[in-house]
C-alpha cells in the first residue's frame, strides 16, 4: 500500500559565493511515503533547511534526482513549480511568516487565491474548516500582530492545510515558541498525522523528534544512520 510521495537520489546542492563552494548537500538519498511523519535533525548548518527547500520546490538541486508523486521535477519551469508548490506542498515556517496586513482568514485563504478556478464559496469553506481544525476559527478577523506566537503558528498550520497538500513541510515550527506552545503545535501536527497527513519536519529538539514515526539524521550534507550520528557527534 505504501505510496512513495518523495523520492530523492544522489541529491547535491552546492552554493557558490565569492569563489567559495559550500557543499550544503552532498549525495542525499531518501524516500517519504504517503501518511508518513518524518522528523529531520542534525547539527546547525548540516543542510536541513536546504533539503527542505528543495523538497518544497523553492530551490533546485545542483545534481541528483527528485521525484514528487512519481514525477520528475528537474525539468519543471517556473510556473509549473509555483503551481505544484501551491497544490502539493504546505509550508510551516519557524517564524510563522504570516502577512501582517492580512487578517487570519485572509492569510489562510492566500494559497487558495493563487489557485485558478476555485469558487469563492469553496475557498471560504476550506478556510473555515482549516481554522476550525487548528482551533483558531474564533480569531478569523484578527490580525497576526494581535495573536500570541503559538496562535500565529496554529494559523500558519491552518494556512498550510487549506490547500490540502500532499505533504506538509515544517522547518523548526517550534523554534520561536516556548515549550508549552511548542508542545501544543506538536500535538496538532501529531493529530494531523493521525488523520492521515504526510509530514516532514525539521527539528533540533529530540523530544519533538520523538513524535515522528521515523527520524532522518543529516550530517554534513549527508543522511546518516542514527547510531552513526552519535558516533560522528562524539568525534566532533
Amino acid at each position, binding site marked *: 500500500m505504501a505510496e512513495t510521495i518523495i523520492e530523492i537520489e544522489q541529491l547535491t546542492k552546492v552554493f557558490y559565493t565569492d569563489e567559495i563552494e559550500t557543499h550544503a548537500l552532498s549525495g542525499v538519498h531518501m524516500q517519504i511515503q504517503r501518511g508518513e511523519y518524518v522528523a529531520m535533525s542534525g547539527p546547525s548548518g548540516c543542510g536541513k533547511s536546504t533539503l527542505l527547500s528543495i523538497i518544497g520546490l523553492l530551490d533546485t538541486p545542483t545534481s541528483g534526482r527528485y521525484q514528487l508523486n512519481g514525477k520528475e521535477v528537474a525539468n519543471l519551469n*517556473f*510556473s509549473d513549480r*509555483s503551481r505544484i508548490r*501551491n497544490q502539493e506542498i504546505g509550508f510551516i*515556517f519557524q517564524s510563522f511568516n504570516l*502577512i*501582517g496586513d492580512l487578517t487570519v482568514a485572509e492569510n489562510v485563504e*492566500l494559497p487558495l487565491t*493563487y489557485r485558478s478556478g476555485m469558487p469563492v464559496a469553496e475557498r471560504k469553506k476550506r478556510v473555515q474548516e482549516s481554522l476550525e481544525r487548528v482551533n483558531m476559527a474564533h480569531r478569523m478577523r484578527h490580525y497576526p500582530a494581535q495573536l500570541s506566537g503559538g496562535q500565529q503558528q496554529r494559523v500558519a498550520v491552518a494556512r498550510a492545510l487549506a490547500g490540502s497538500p500532499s505533504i506538509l513541510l515544517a522547518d523548526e515550527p517550534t523554534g520561536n515558541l516556548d515549550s508549552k506552545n511548542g508542545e501544543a503545535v506538536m500535538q496538532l501536527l501529531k493529530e494531523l498525522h493521525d488523520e492521515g497527513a504526510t509530514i516532514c519536519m525539521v527539528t533540533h529538539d529530540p523530544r519533538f523528534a520523538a513524535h515522528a514515526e521515523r527520524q532522518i539524521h543529516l550530517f554534513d550534507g549527508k543522511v546518516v544512520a542514527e547510531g552513526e550520528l552519535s558516533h560522528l557527534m562524539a568525534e566532533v
Partner: protein
Amino acid sequence: MNRLVQDIKFALRQLRKSPGFTITAIVTLALGIGANAAIFTLVHAVLLKNLPVSDPKLLVRVGDTDDCCVEGGVPDQRDYSIFAFELYQHLRENTPEFESLAAMQAGVGYAGVTARSNKPGDLPRAERGEVVTGNYFQVLGLQPYAGRLILPSDDVQGAPMGVVMSYQAWQRDYASDPSVVGSTFVLNTYPVTILGITPPSFYGDRMTSAPPDFYIPMVMEPNFGPGNPTSLLHRRDANWLYLLGKIKPGTDLKQLEAKMSASLRNYLATLPLYQRQDRQADLAGAHVVLTPGGAGIENMQQEYGVGLKMLITVSALVLLIACANIANLMLVRGMARRAETSIRMALGAQRARLIRQMLTESVVLSCLGGLAGLLVAYAGTKVLLAMAFPHAQSLPIEATPSLVVLGFAFALSLLTGLIFGVAPAWVTSHSQPADALRGSNRTTSDRSGWLQRSLVILQAALSLILLVGAGLMAKSLSKLENQDFGVVTQNRVVVHFSPESAGYKQEQLQGLYDKIINDLHALPGVDKAALSLYTPLEGNNWGEGVYIQGRPEPGAQAKNGASWLRVGPEYFDIVGHRVLRGRGITAQDTATSLPVVVVNEAFVKKFFSNGENPLGAHFGISGMESVGDWEIVGVVSDIKYNDLRRPTRAMYFRPLLQVAHTKSQTDTRSLYAGAIMLTTKGQVGNLESQVRRTLANINPNLTVVDYNTFEAQVRGQFDQERMIARLTLMFSLLALMLAAVGLYGVTAYSVARRTPEIGVRMALGAGRGNVVAMVMREAMLQAIIGLAIGIPAAWLCVRLVQSQLYNVGGHDAMVMTGSVLVLTIAALLAGLIPAQRAASTDPVKALRTE
C-alpha cells in the same frame, strides 16, 4: 567643531553607501530648485525689475494701456495712455505735483534712423531712435556712462542738434570707441553731435528685445520722429507720446489722477472731435489712469504677464512635487533605518545625538542638491531667456538667477528634507527600543505607508493638472500656427527699409520706387518685387474710420473702422491675396490717376453686408466730406495681418502714391513705403547681400532695417505662444518625471520592505504573474486615486488658462484623455520595474532574511 566635521564626514559616508537614494534626492532637488530659480529669474526680470534709476518709487506713468503708436479718435474705454504733444504740454503745465513730466515716442518700431559715423569708410547703418523731451533723463535720474545726457537746453528751437547713444549700440556697432562721444554723425542725412552714452544698465524706458540706439530731443522730431518726414508735433488729433514723470514726494496719486483727468477733459473740449453733440459722453468719460513708472512703460510686462504668471504657478507645482519626492525619499530612508536606529538606542545611543546625525545628513544632502540646483538654474535661465526673446539684439535682461529666488527654493527644500528626514528618527527615538525590536518580527505592516502613498497621489494629481495644461497650450499653439492665414510664404522675403530716413522728398518717391523695383527685378533669381507700407504679421497696423458715399453718417458708437495700407503692383501676388472681383493695384495707379482702392472680403462683409455691389462704390476716411475720395475697383481674398486669435479685419489697399483729396496734408506720411517683398525662383544664395548692395547703390543711406524670410516673419508671431507652450510642456514633463520617480521610489521601497512577504507568497504558490499583479495593483491604485483627484481638479484649473487658448475648449476631451494616458503609462513604467524585481525574488533567500 570637531564633532561637526565628524558628523559631516559620517553623513557623507552614509550618503555614499546608498547611491540610489542620494542621486535621486540630489537630482530631484536640482531640478526643483533649478527650474524654479530659472522661471523666477525670468519673471523677476520681466515683471518686477525697476529701471536703474535713482528713485523708482517716485516715477509715475500717465496711462495704463499699451496703445501704440500713432492714434486719433476716442481711445478704448475713453482711457488715455498716449498723448499729442500739445496735450502733453497742457498736462505738464497744469500739474505742479510732478517735479518733472517727460514725454517719449510710443512706437519704436521699424521706423528708424540711418546713422553714419564720421569715420572714413564707415557705411550708414539702420538704427532705432526714440524721440524724448529734454527732461527725459532728469526724470529718470540717470548718469551718463560717457559725455553727457540730453538736457532741457538741447530741446529748444535753434539748439545745436545733439543726441545720446545707448551703451549697447556703442558697444555693438562702434566698438566702444571713446572718440564717438563728441563726434558728429550723419543721422538721416543731418549732421548731429553725439552728446554722450547712456549707462550700461539702462535698456530704455520699456522692456523690448530691440531697445533704442539713439535718444533724440523732441525738437528734432520732424526729422526723426515716427511721422518723419512729416511732423506730429503740432498735430492736435494724433496721439503718439507716452508720459512718464517724477512726482514730488508725498503726492496723493488718486487726487492727482482725478486732477489730471479733469485737465485732460479741459483740453479735449477744445478739439473738433469732442465738440460734436454725440461725443459729449465720450468727453465726459475721458480719463487717465496713473500707474507705477518705476519699471518704465510696462507694455511687455502686460503682454507677457498672464503667461508668466501661469509659468510661475506651473513651476511652483513642480517645486511642490519635488518637495513631495524629497519628503518621500527621506521618509523611506528614515523608516528603513528605524531598525538600525532602535538597535543603536538599545546599545545606549543618545537620542539627541541620533537626531543630530539625521539632521546633519539632511542638511548635507540639501546642500549638495542646492549646489546642483544652482547649476541647473544658471543653465536653465540661459535657455529660458533664449526661448523668451529668440530674436533679441541686446537682451534687456541679466541672465543671472537672483539670490533671493535661489535662497527661497533652497530653503524650502532644506526644510522639507529636515522635517521628513528627522521625523522618522524622532518617532523612533521616542518609542521604546524593545518595541521596535519586537515589532519588526511580528508584523510587516508599516505606518508611514499611508503618508508616502498620499504624497505620491498628490504628485500624480498635480502632474495630471500640469499635463492637461500643457496639452491645452500645445493644442492651442498648433491651432494658431496651422490656421490658414491666407498668406503664401515659400520663397518669399521681406525687406524693411526707410526712405524717409534716407532723406527723400515726397516728389522724389516715384522715381525711387521705380528704380528700386527695377533694380531688384534685375537680380538673378528674383521673380517678383513689390513695395508696401507694411506687411502681414509684422506687428504693424494703420486704421481709420470709413465713410461710405450714399450712406448716413455713422454715429459715435458705430464701428466703421478698417485697416489699410499702400501697396505696389505685384504685391497681392507675392503675399497671396487673390483678386476675386474687379482688379488689383497696377502700375497704372499713379499719383495722378483716378484715386482707387481694393478691399478685402472682410471689408465687403462689413460694409456691403446686404449684397450691394462694392465695385464702383466710393468712400473716404476724413468724415462725410471725404466720401467721394476713392472708388473701389477690386476685391481680394482675406489675409490676417494682425491678431491671429481674431477674425480677419476689414481692410483696404491703396496705390503707393495717391494722396487723398480731402485733408491731403495728413495723408503724406504713408507715402513712404516701409517694406519690400520679393519672391524668388527657388533658393537664392546671398540674396540678402545682393539686396543690400542694390539699395546702397541707389543711395548709401537706403539701409536695410530688417531682412527676413516671410516664413520667419510669420513664425515670429508665435514666439510668445510657443515659449509659453514649450515651457509649460517642459515643466509638466519635469513634473511627470518627478512624480514617476516618486511612484517608483515608493513602490521600490515597498517591494524591498515586503521581500520576505513576497517570499512567503511564492512559497505558498504565488507565480510571477501574481507577484507582478500585486505590486502593480498597489502602484496603480495610487495613480488611479491621483487621477480621480487630478481629473476634476484639472477640469477646474483650466479656467485659469482659458484666456490663453485659441480655438480650444478648456475641457478638451482629447487633451484630457491624452494626459490621463501619459500619466498612466508613466505610472505603469514606474511600477513595472520594481514589480519585475519583486517577481524575480528568490523565495529561499527572501525567507532567510526573516
